[in-house]
């Protein structure tokens, strides 16, 4: 059965494969031709083959819950999402520029606070930040880098422009899905890898290892690096196992580590205590050290913060890095880039109004029916107002809250995500909304994954890409094209 491209039901979003004239976009000609040649039936067969492969590999991809484990059929769509290398190179530069500024900001916030003194960043925003850690003041981590691993969420608007939606600087996850997606796609579409020049993604574990190893405080060669996980019941546990194995590192839990009298960190092994130089921690700040943060945390290591502050052990990401992972801070990233780097931002934010500015606030209050309002310190959509869908009473309530505490609110327009053709349950290709999470590494050097994790909202019309709510993922191809 041939693919009826001319019946492709465009949404109002930008489609990444097809132009409104039903033609392939620049760089996508090869993929388009290939899909057309395969036809729908063959595509459906390959989708089933991919699902079988996932089930076979799926032993590693499991949702754990207390007592039982549920093997999850990991939703994956075989049609890749494609970005031309030329465009990607600019995105890459933009991401590195952004993370460089964010790291300078974090260091500044825990240091001289120049950005506040010079009036570029409001002191009140910092004062109310839930992720500011006073224990980090005055610390100077290696290379001035606090956030070594960053997962930034990118979207493409109606005009095809890439925008940054948020920067995940605490313990971003998803990179293992990116790697597995590629593995599956290579099995499903082997022919394409022969004819297209698709940038490989497989070097991520090696780059992550290099980033980690370069932070080791003492001269042990090779340094001892470990991955610290909250344990089996964490939803990203498989990723912790995956990365530890790919890097050849021990996967430790808090109870495997102790801080010695010399303030160094050791892990408990069958040959006694072994010193640890670098910890890639996938445990949130507040659970790292019961002596300093949550005192009944079973996940942490007593004395770990003391050891880190004295520079006896490196932690990735550094404690306190989350101060820049906040919706109001996000709104200030373009100013940060200008302030610290003296450059214009390469990547734009989603337009954001900061309610603490009088003009912005007036704009927001008169357009509540068109905007999305987000509080700074909540996550998971809590306390959010989606204006076009809210009742009059809800909008009035939000207006009152904004007026009472303007610093705590930002507003953005309703975001339109771009689409990529996706094989539906009925076996036809329809547009589905996607975002993109590239992973940026920064330390002695900076690098960005070639692409990242494309998340797709598998339900028709849905803008929610989270895997817990009907989201799936796609392989992401950065493709070199001849000019």
């Amino acid at each position, binding site marked *: 059965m041939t693919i009826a491209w001319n019946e492709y039901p465009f949404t109002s979003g930008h489609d990444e494969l097809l132009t409104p004239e039903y033609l392939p976009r620049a760089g996508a000609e090869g993929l388009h031709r290939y899909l057309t040649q395969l036809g729908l039936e063959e595509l459906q067969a390959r989708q089933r083959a991919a699902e079988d492969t996932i089930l076979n590999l799926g*032993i*590693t991809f499991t949702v754990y819950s207390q007592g039982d*484990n549920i093997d999850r059929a990991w939703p994956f769509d075989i049609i890749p999402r494609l970005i031309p290398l030329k465009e990607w190179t600019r995105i890459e530069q933009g991401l590195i520029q952004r993370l460089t500024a964010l790291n300078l900001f974090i260091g500044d916030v825990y240091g001289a606070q120049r950005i506040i003194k010079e009036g570029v960043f409001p002191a009140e925003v910092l004062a109310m930040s839930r992720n500011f850690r006073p224990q980090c003041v005055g610390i100077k981590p290696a290379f001035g880098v606090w956030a070594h691993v960053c997962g930034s969420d990118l979207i493409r608007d109606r005009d095809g422009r890439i925008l940054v939606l948020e920067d995940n600087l605490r313990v971003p996850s998803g990179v293992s899905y990116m790697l597995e997606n590629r593995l599956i796609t290579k099995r499903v579409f082997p022919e394409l890898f022969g004819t297209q020049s698709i940038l490989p993604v497989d070097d991520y574990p090696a780059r992550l290892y290099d980033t980690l190893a370069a932070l080791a405080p003492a001269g042990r060669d090779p340094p001892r690096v470990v991955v610290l996980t909250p*344990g*089996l019941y964490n939803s990203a546990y498989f990723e912790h*196992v*995956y990365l530890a*194995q790919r890097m050849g590192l*021990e996967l*430790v*839990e808090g*109870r*495997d580590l102790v801080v010695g009298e010399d303030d160094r960190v050791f*892990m*408990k*092994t*069958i*040959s*006694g205590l072994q010193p640890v130089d670098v910890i890639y921690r996938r445990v949130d700040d507040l659970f790292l050290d019961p002596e300093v943060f949550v005192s009944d945390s079973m996940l942490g290591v007593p004395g770990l913060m003391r050891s880190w502050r004295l520079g006896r052990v490196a932690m990735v990401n550094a404690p306190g890095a989350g101060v820049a992972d906040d919706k109001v801070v996000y709104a200030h990233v373009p100013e940060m880039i200008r302030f610290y780097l003296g450059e214009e931002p390469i990547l734009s934010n989603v337009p954001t109004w900061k309610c603490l500015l009088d003009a912005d606030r007036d704009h927001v209050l008169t357009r509540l029916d068109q905007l999305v309002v987000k509080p700074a310190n909540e996550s998971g959509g809590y306390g959010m107002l989606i204006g076009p869908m809210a009742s009059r009473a809800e909008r009035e309530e939000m207006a009152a809250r904004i007026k009472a505490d303007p610093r705590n609110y930002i507003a953005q327009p309703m975001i339109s995500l771009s689409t990529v053709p996706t094989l539906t349950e009925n076996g036809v290709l329809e547009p589905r909304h996607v975002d993109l999470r590239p992973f940026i590494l920064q330390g002695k050097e900076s690098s960005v994954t070639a692409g990242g994790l494309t998340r797709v909202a598998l339900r028709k019309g849905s803008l929610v890409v989270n895997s817990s709510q009907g989201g799936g993922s796609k392989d992401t191809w950065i493709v070199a094209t001849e000019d």
Partner: protein
Amino acid sequence: MLSRVAENIYWMGRYLERAENIARLVSVTSTLLLDQPGVGPEQGWRRLVIITGCDAAFAQTGQRAGEEAVTRFLLSESDNVSSLFSSVAYARENLRAMRDSFPGELWEGLNDLSLFLKEQGEKGVEAAYRHDFLGEVIGRCQTLVGILVGTLSRGPAFDFFSMGQHMERADMCTRILDVDVATGHPTRGGMDLLWLNLLRSVSGEPMYRRHVNPRVNAVDVVSFLLRDRRFPRAFNFCLYEVERCLNTLDHNALSVQLLKRMERRVDTQDVATLIETGPALFMDELQQELQKLHRIITAIYF
């Protein structure tokens, strides 16, 4: 290797071995009781509860030690921490956190076994299905051990597994001997069956007949099970294997010293006297020494 991981592997070895032993004990007892019309079945089933060290826990259920109550308690009762069901569940819990470091078949097999017990555990209670059911359980346990022996690189992971397995096996050996020898008062005729039962509970009949004595007698059977150097379920054989594993590790002086003392103690024990006076004290002593060894291993490596 991380201490936590080593401890998980050690316990996985113990629980897998325990599961197999329980299945063997129930299976052999069922067969034996059919052949002993003179012996009150109560005695036979009670014996099982004692061997597995669950008499106190069983007493709490308030049930009489009949066939159905005991088999259910030992095989499928999730409240009994020493049951077949619990042993497999614990082995699975131990493997879960480290399953990616082992061949995938191991997790799949253990998961399957756990499901099998959950779904079909009641078959072990019904006399008509019991034999096949337990045969399947024993076979699956052996398959899991076979996967490990056949695919796991020799090194600390294998050694901690083997240590757990053989500590448990040695412990079970003393328990079988304790109860069987103690309850087997010499009578004419029926005794041979009891020694045969003892051998069969560890699949040792052919090895015994071939290497020790074609005829079954008390002294030879007990000696075989205590100190045969070639039979993998003999007590001292288990100690040698634990010693081999410990010799690959650091800080083993204390534990190896204790092992050597136990091995000597078993080698020099006069077996005829042991049978005459009753083995209880001696077996108690060995069990306590094993617990001491377990505590040393735990303190030094975990």
